[in-house]
């Protein structure tokens, strides 16, 4: 049995827990409950012939008052940097976290998830141009909606694939 630790990183209220719940339990709740510390979930995924048990570390969102503890990221085989498409500042927070995560995880693969894409584009504050710029920098980006489930399965499958093939 292959087991992998995956961390969910991002600013507060970007939808990390919702993405995990959508992926693990196929549910979504409009009610917001902030994560304190870390919450663990797991999901068994199949990649090719390999069955992988993903241990999902849903880490609390980072804000001015609560910084993500590096020790949570230690030992992660991959991670997501989650960004709220309607809050531009969450991209900056996410990218800062990614720098720390890259160091702690010794260069583990990651994917940037632009979440809440179910909301009207008129509310999107991260432009397509910004996304393309990030892609150009070599970052892998997937647009997701925890509410509708868009891109969620794809994101987890892709990260698993990256981890296995690393």
């Amino acid at each position: 049995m292959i087991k992998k630790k995956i961390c969910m990183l991002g600013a507060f209220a970007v939808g990390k827990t919702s993405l995990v719940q959508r992926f693990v339990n196929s549910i979504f709740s409009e009610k917001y409950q902030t994560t304190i510390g870390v919450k663990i979930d797991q999901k068994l995924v199949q990649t090719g012939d390999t069955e992988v048990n993903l241990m999902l570390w849903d880490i609390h969102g980072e804000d001015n008052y609560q910084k993500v503890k590096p020790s949570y990221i230690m030992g992660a085989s991959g991670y997501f940097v989650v960004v709220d498409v309607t809050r531009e500042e969450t991209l900056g927070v996410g990218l800062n976290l990614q720098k720390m995560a890259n160091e702690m995880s010794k260069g583990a693969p990651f994917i940037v998830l632009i979440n809440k894409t179910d909301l009207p584009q008129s509310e999107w504050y991260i432009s397509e141009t910004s996304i393309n710029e990030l892609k150009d920098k070599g970052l892998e980006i997937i647009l997701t909606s925890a509410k509708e489930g868009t891109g969620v399965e794809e994101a987890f499958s892709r990260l698993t694939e990256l981890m296995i093939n690393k």
Partner: protein
Amino acid sequence: MSDKDFINVLNKAQLSELRRIITGLDEEDLSRLNNLIKDPDAFSDHIIEFLPLSIKKLISSHQVTLDEITPFIEQAIQASIKANPQKFANILYPVMVPAIRKAVAEDIKRMLDSVSSSVDNSFSVKRIGWRLQSIFSGKSYGEIVLSHAFIYRVREVFLIHTETGLLLLDITDERGGLSNNADMVSSMLTAIKDFAQDSLNVDRSKSDLNTIQMGEYTIWIEPGPYAIVAAIIEGRPPEELKVILKEAIEAVHVNFDHELKTFDGDTDTFKKSERFLQSCIKQQEKEQKKKKPIASTLLLLILLSALGYWIYTSVDSNIRFNHFVKYAENQPGIVINKLEKQNGKHVVYALKDPLSENPYNYSGQFGFDSSNLQFKFKSYLSLEKEIILKRSSILLQAFNNESIHLSNGIIYLKGNFRQTEADSMKALLMHLPGIDSINFDSIVKNQPFRAVINKSVFNIEKYYFVFKYNTFKLDSSQKIKFTKLIKNIKNVYDFNFKNDSIPVIVVIAHTSRAGNAEGNKIVAFNRAKQFIDLMVAAGIPMETLVPTVSYKEEEKDAYPLRSVSFKVKFVKPEEL
């Protein structure tokens, strides 16, 4: 051409060329190699950079196993320590000192924990109960405390990779694990541990979260460099369990060092570490009181009752038998030699004088009869006072002694005895063992002569014997009467009459009145003579016996018809 001739033909340049062709090396290389081999220092310096790589490759390719190398390394280390212990001590100092310090600190902590635990319970009601239990059970107080304080059961043991928090192995006891999802529990444990360390801002290398208390469950975490072992324990574990956990995590690190360092998510490798974790599944349970089945309890009670009854009857029987034996031993003429029990029956081996009382006569008083008691007698002659007296009394039946007693081998006889009687009695008794002498002197002297004679005469004349028609035969009662008659006659005859008179017995035959009177007189006279014959046979002198007939036509005779009566007369010797 020989080889030598061939070499001589070649010049130096040609030889160099030949070496180069054969070895592939020029002269300079060959010279360097030659120098290298000849100089061991240089040679060892040269190969030193390749040697570790070669060993590593050998081990990696499994051509050489660690097990094969280990003895050499151990020997080398041993030899080195022996040669220069100080050097090795210096090498180990940086490692040993912190390790010793840590071990001592752990022991002190463990001791303090135990003391704290004891103090916690010192004055509780529970503690008082334990004290009482100790007093009543006879066990030491320490044993009782231990039996209550350290009852525990290790339910589940996790081996967790420290860095990733991933579960490497999960072992449960026979009841199954407590956690629904061991993977999540192990990750969460790691997260909690990380959170605690980060939040408290403590040095990770020195401080670790090692105990989590959750209701009746305790989670003990024992860290290692790359993995931790966490045990979920029900109850109150002893401090010794920490040592077991520590040994387990050490064993895992010794055997899976490489796998732990290079762990990339494949947990199958760690299945082999199960035996180390299995050693942590320990338990110490309270002894449960077993329910005693009613049937067996009842049976036990019946058996105990039966046993009790058997013991009671046996004891009672033995007590009664002992009393009986004691009683029998006190009886004259009985000497008990041996007691046995055969087929549930008491067997008594004893000596018995024929004159002693048969023990069966009184065994009934003690609850014994021939069904449970048997005597095996051998006859003997008892010299006990009672038996001597009894024996003497039997021999003196024919004499009119009033009483008889024995003291210090002397028989004392009281009664009206004549000298001839005394002599006869003496002759009879003096042969009996246990009798030294007979005393009746005082009695004889005190008796008035005439009184004795008169009594005997009165007795003689009182007797009469009745016979049937034409017969002369004494029945059994008449025979007894006849004996007494003779005894009285002899009393009179034995008396010393100083020759002034001699007693004569007139035997009077009383006739029948039926038939011929003369004929009846003849028959009666013959009856008198026949009776005299009997008396002569009994020792009465013939010359002192006179037959006569009494015929009376009227029924005024004091004696019955066909009877014989007696009359005593004293006559001068010349009249006899």
